[in-house]
């Protein structure tokens, strides 16, 4: 194998990592958290009646409208859709999924527990601005269980296609990784750059991490549960799944990294009680008839002293004249709306690509997963459906909504018919739960690439996986500057970490700070 790490290389690596301890000490960074851990203090100067046009009602737009309204600005929001919230969308009894060519109306039981967050679903504890608004607007939150060790891992190539419990996979994988590492470390101890006590600590950690025996070998772990007994009788360990067998699952990476908090997924996440759109309606209710629905923007003209926005309502074109404009219409839709943006601004706007995402869910006749000792978390399936989520709320209730597919890349679901999508999710789901097909009632699907007024999911900036090019950084800066000091582009499209509500909110705060500064410096 040409790729394997030689002993010499391993030693070098170990040396390199030994050196990093200095960084931690010097920075004393352990108490720090990522930048978003502090919610922004918004203190806009009170204003009497400057007019603001807000385009779209994504969370960035609602944040903007809410803060400006509190400060006394006169806001009007123009929304093309029949509903507010864009990608924060909850499906429940009666909801329409306005996917182009695949109009669906949800006919699940009318029960507050039975909902499906078709867009955003999870709030990490470091997304302080999302949490701040939940608190301010009294949106009740509950814990969302992102990882369950009793959920399943399934790959046709592993275990004859039969699912294994997450814990069987992860405990064994941790065991093997620890065993291999400790072996390498033991062999190389003499020439390694670690001190004896550092090596000891590392070995001790590996032993616990992998649940190794005294000889530092992995011989199975009770973490995977007992083969038999465990309460009245002594528990017996389960058989070890051979490493070679584990390696047949090609989705192991997903299984092993669900618990990373930093980028937003973690064992502890949150969700609003009753659906993600509770946040949207908390804003929308307070904004009341400032929001015009089914009012698609058809032209945006930036003038010397303001912005003129044309929109359609009831078949008539109206013009809204405002002092300022905040716009969260997806960039790929703005390029089909006449405007007079400067060339470099348009170029940057047109550069952003639209990402794909697909989700599906059904109402389960019974909470069948609970009979399998699953009370939340994710089952990983090596098929385009990729994930199955079990609702962590309403435990032991009658029914529940199961997320039956979540492909953050969309696969080829966009072009599939509703019938084919349903068959696809049933076909893969029943490999995990034999009674799946029988349990699934009224599946609903959503391909964001075809959603009316969205046509996409996460905006994609960087063309190169390696990171942002200088040109991209430059275009991004161009879009962050308001056109003529009047037109602000907001939304997660104008951030460097798309697909998060927190980013969208922070984009609004960034634009508001700029506006506030301009208004404050105007001659009185």
């Amino acid at each position, binding site marked *: 194998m040409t790729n394997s790490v030689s002993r010499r290389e391993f030693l070098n690596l170990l040396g390199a990592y030994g050196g990093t301890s200095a960084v931690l000490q010097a920075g004393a960074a352990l108490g720090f958290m990522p930048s978003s851990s502090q919610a922004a203090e918004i203190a806009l100067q009170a204003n009497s009646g400057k007019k603001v046009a807000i385009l779209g009602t994504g969370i960035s737009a609602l944040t903007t409208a809410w803060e400006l309204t509190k400060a006394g600005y006169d806001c009007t929001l123009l929304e*093309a859709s*029949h*509903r*507010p919230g864009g990608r924060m969308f909850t499906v*429940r*009894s*009666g*909801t*329409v999924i*306005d996917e*182009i*060519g*695949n*109009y669906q109306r949800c006919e699940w039981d009318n029960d507050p527990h039975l909902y499906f967050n078709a867009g955003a679903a999870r709030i990490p504890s470091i997304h302080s601005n999302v949490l701040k608004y939940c608190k301010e607007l009294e949106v009740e939150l509950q814990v969302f269980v992102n990882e369950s060790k009793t959920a399943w891992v399934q790959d046709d190539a592993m275990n004859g296609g039969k699912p294994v419990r997450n814990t069987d996979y992860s405990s064994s994988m941790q065991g093997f990784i620890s065993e291999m590492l400790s072996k390498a470390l033991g062999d190389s101890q003499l020439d390694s750059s670690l001190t004896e006590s550092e090596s000891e600590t590392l070995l001790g950690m590996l032993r616990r991490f992998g649940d190794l025996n005294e000889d530092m070998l992995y011989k199975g772990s009770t973490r995977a549960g007992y083969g038999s007994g465990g309460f009245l009788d002594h528990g017996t360990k389960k058989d070890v799944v051979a490493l070679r067998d584990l390696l047949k699952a090609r989705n192991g990476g997903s299984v092993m990294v669900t618990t990373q908090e930093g980028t937003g997924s973690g064992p502890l996440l949150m969700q609003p009680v009753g659906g993600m759109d*509770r946040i949207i*309606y*908390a804003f*929308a*209710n307070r904004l*009341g*008839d400032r929001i015009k*629905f*089914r009012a*698609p*923007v*058809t*032209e945006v003209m930036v003038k010397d002293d303001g912005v003129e926005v044309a929109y359609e*309502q*009831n*078949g008539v074109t109206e013009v809204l004249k405002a002092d300022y404009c905040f716009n969260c219409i997806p*960039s*790929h*839709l703005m*390029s*089909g*709306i*006449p405007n007079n943006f400067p060339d470099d601004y348009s170029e940057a706007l*047109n550069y952003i690509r*639209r990402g794909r995402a697909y989700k599906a869910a059904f109402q389960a006749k019974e909470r069948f997963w609970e009979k399998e000792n699953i009370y939340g978390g994710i089952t990983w399936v090596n098929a385009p459906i990729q994930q199955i989520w079990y609702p962590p709320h309403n435990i032991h209730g009658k029914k529940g909504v199961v997320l039956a597919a979540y492909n953050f890349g969309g696969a080829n679901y*966009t*072009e599939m*018919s509703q019938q084919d999508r349903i068959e696809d999710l049933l076909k893969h789901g029943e490999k995990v739960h034999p009674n799946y097909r029988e349990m699934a009632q009224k599946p609903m699907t959503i391909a964001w690439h*075809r959603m*009316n*007024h969205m*046509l996409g999911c996460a905006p994609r900036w960087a063309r190169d996986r390696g990171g942002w090019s200088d040109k991209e950084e430059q275009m991004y800066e161009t879009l962050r500057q308001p056109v003529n000091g009047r037109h602000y582009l907001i939304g997660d499209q104008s951030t460097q970490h798309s697909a998060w509500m927190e980013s969208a909110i922070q984009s609004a705060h960034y634009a508001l700070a700029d506006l506030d500064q301009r208004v404050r410096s105007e001659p009185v």
Partner: protein
Amino acid sequence: MKKFVTATTLILSALCSMASLAAEGDVGVAAAMDDRYCTTCHGAEGIGNIAIEAPRLAGMEAWYLKRQLENFRAGIRGTHGEDIQGIAMRPMAAKLSDESIADIVDWVGDWEYVAAEATVEGNVRQGRTAFQACAACHGANAQGNEALGAPALAGQNDWYLLTQLRNFRAGFRGSHQEDTFGSQMVTMSKTLTDDQAVINVVSYINTL
């Protein structure tokens, strides 16, 4: 304008239910009751949208639009595995009823013709020569000819013309056995000997 009546009622019901927005379900505006979805992809008043690669509809002939919607619906267009944009369009049309198609064609007819911006640059002189073959059906000014089933090309988004000509040449469009007019285009597009010739002819159409 039957649509507007429905819309007004919907808005009224929206306002009435505004107060109880958060209580249950969606805002009180019922979702679209018709199939007038075109502008989301094809731009405001159908001006075309390069980011979605959805061409200009404003000014498109009613008979041509109708035929293409019917072709998409029937799978005569947009089913070849390499016709990426066609594949994206097909599901949008797959469920349209005859009434919906008539309604859409009516609606599109309301939009003003606005010539699209030129983005393709080639050798106009050579393009003009090559265009003689096209002119026979599409007209000397690329104004279209209903009797021959040939749509107007002038004013259409040049990036769209480019994609379609490339698709015809490669057989990604027009290969379906029931696509009578499409198959003529497959043959005719072969008079353009290479991709540069395609670019040139589109550049010439931009001048018309």
